[in-house]
């Protein structure tokens, strides 16, 4: 199953459950409160996911390491490399 199908499948299951509860399709005569809670649930989920995404990406951007040490080390290595290669007779 492709990821797309997985998402469609998951999405339809959630949508079906939501519709069942919200519109009481099976005539389970659920308490009114259930329906009131279920009705705006998709919006809540969407907003929470959005917040989660923003927070995660924000946190990860803020904690993205700057490898200054590695860059400095590399610059030194490159200097050393050029010298060594010249000594070994490389014509650039």
């Amino acid at each position, binding site marked *: 199953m492709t990821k797309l199908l997985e998402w469609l499948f998951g999405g339809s299951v959630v949508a079906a459950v939501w519709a069942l509860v919200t519109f009481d399709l099976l005539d389970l005569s659920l308490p009114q409160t259930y329906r009131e809670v279920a009705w705006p649930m998709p919006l809540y989920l969407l907003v929470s996911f959005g917040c989660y995404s923003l927070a995660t990406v924000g946190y990860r951007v803020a904690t993205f390491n700057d*490898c200054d040490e*590695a*860059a400095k080390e590399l610059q030194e290595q490159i200097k050393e*490399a050029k010298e060594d*290669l010249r000594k070994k007779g*490389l014509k*650039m």
Partner: protein
Amino acid sequence: MASRKTSHQKRDNGDKYSVLLPTYNERENLPLIVWLLVKYFGESGYNYEIIVIDDGSPDGTLEVGEQLQKIYGEDKILLRPRAKKLGLGTAYIHGMKHATGNYIFIMDADLSHHTIFLFVRKQKEGNYDLVSGTRYQGNGGVYGWDLRRKLISRGANFLTQVLLRPGASDLTGSFRLYKKKVLESLIERCVSKGYVFQMEMIVRARQLNYTIGEVPISFVDRVYGESKLGGNEIVSFVKGLLTLFATT
């Protein structure tokens, strides 16, 4: 210092590592990359070879490769040029045909100290089918990126993780160690070009239930100088992502 004879501990356990280096107009950079590889492989004591696949660079990259071959020996530097630019995937296939190692390194970023050792150790630790470098975990990271670049990188990565759940934290960073057989079976399944190619390799690996180990790397892209991240790159990235989303 860069001589391969100075290795203090020869780890002769039968394993050999082939490094594939596809090049196009890299006459300035190739000697530096090779020098770093020779130095770090020499220090680690692993058995290795470097395979340069030059796609007919007009700047004379191949000629520089020949000089390097004279310096470091034909057993260490193998030149397997092609007549013209034919793409990354086929370059790896071409290089692999000539590889005598049972492990393959693929890299398009600078090598930093201990990287080789960390990859090999990680691979042995879990007998992983492939070990992928990651900029996003542990002490991995990047150098010289501004906020915008970091934001795009992290955002794109988050989106990819949500949509594909690839089982690896860094899909586009390409410093990887593969078992040769694994790379062979992956590469014949991968159809993407350029940027998305490395991503597809990991996604296919997950699909085929290969095990993936990760090693934090510092991504200092001085040598290969990754192209600026413009609108075109973003569009082709999104296209590639959606293709993989729909097909894997």
